[in-house]
């Protein structure tokens, strides 16, 4: 079953790659550098998906004390941080030729950076607690606080950037993009989601094996 998921994921990623780099048309304003969007936007989607899963798994753990929920939270947070980092990196690489600078405090990059350090802190907390049960409990509480903070981060950053400031360049709404670009984006969305599921299930399995090895 795992190799089936792995195979489908790989196929999806290849399809996404072909569409993003090849089949999707060259964008009129920015040129081909816009193709980085097919990495950047699905990455941020996966990050949000991952952190939502951390919230659900954290609440489940506190209510039911199921070890599997704790492992899911841990794995999902790690994969979430991975894709958040990727979002920041691809956003920065995209920004250099388009805005002329490696970094800018635009709404998305700022929001994602805050999420990055929040959940990096989550991983740090887990790393610093040796007692398995306490680590799971505390991480669950932190996971809940962090998740409820996300909407607050969203609004504060958006208002911070857009009031008295012109809105950032990259704000592609699906309604304003040509169909073929949207298709390529959706294919990549699907591929990245599959990759998320693949990574989280493998990571959770490693965590289970680690727990058994200690027992």
């Amino acid at each position, binding site marked *: 079953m795992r190799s089936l998921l792995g195979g489908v994921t790989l196929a999806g990623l290849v399809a996404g790659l072909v569409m993003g780099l090849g089949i999707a048309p060259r964008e009129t304003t920015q040129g081909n550098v816009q193709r980085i969007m097919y990495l950047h936007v699905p990455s941020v989607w996966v990050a949000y998906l991952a952190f939502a899963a951390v919230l659900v798994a954290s609440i489940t753990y506190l209510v039911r004390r199921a070890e599997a929920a704790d492992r899911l939270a841990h794995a999902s947070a790690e994969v979430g941080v991975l894709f958040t980092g990727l979002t920041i990196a691809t956003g920065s690489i995209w920004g250099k030729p388009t805005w002329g600078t490696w970094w800018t405090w635009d709404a998305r990059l700022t929001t994602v950076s805050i999420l990055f350090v929040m959940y990096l802190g989550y991983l740090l907390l887990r790393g*610093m607690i040796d007692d398995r049960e*306490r680590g799971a409990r505390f991480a669950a509480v932190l996971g809940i606080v962090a998740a409820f903070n996300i909407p607050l981060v969203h609004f504060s950053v958006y208002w911070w950037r857009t009031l008295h400031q012109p809105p950032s360049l990259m704000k592609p709404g699906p309604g304003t993009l040509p169909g073929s670009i949207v298709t390529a984006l959706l294919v990549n969305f699907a591929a990245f989601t599959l990759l998320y599921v693949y990574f989280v299930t493998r990571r959770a399995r490693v965590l289970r094996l680690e727990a058994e090895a200690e027992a």
Partner: protein
Amino acid sequence: MVWKDLLVERRSKETLNALFFFALLLLFMFQFALGPDRERLAGTLPGLLWLGFILSGLLGLGRTFLVERENDCWEGLLLAPGDKSAIYVGKLAGNLLLMLVIETILLVLFGFFFNLDLAKALPGLAVVIVLGTVAFAAVGTLFAAMTAQVRARELLFPVLLLPVEAPVLLATVKATEAVLLGETLGSVAHWLKLLAAADVVYVAVGVLTFDFVMEG
């Protein structure tokens, strides 16, 4: 019991004095680092003010459960009958008071050093400061309880608290800026609503999850 209360009260006076001194030093450091040119600093004042609040708050809040840890009262807390959330609310109230006192002192010092006329802005400032401080103390008290039971707690506490408080910082600085420029509270209503929402969310999560933090 009375002895414990006296001990706590003496400890908080110590804490207050030390924090006041720290706040004053911060003010000096800001001016040494950023230069004596008052005109240049004027635009950054709201930010500096809240940085001062936050840095003092980190020191003060991080010590919330220090007394219990140091004096072997921790088990007493854990074994206390009934809802442990009452402990959280009590600690939160104490922290809130502590922070508000320090912030008032810092505000006065700022007014003195930067020659600000705070009289007109005071009511608006009070609203923003209270809203922001509740948000800070609510999460800070919860995290202090957690990190008190973890190694490297002095390091972990700010590392966990600061990212979570980022939206609160954005909101309070923007709102303070507006108030100091003489604008009405209505013009920053969205920021105030965000702070109020943050207050509700953080206190609610704190009350609901504190029991889980105090289990073992």
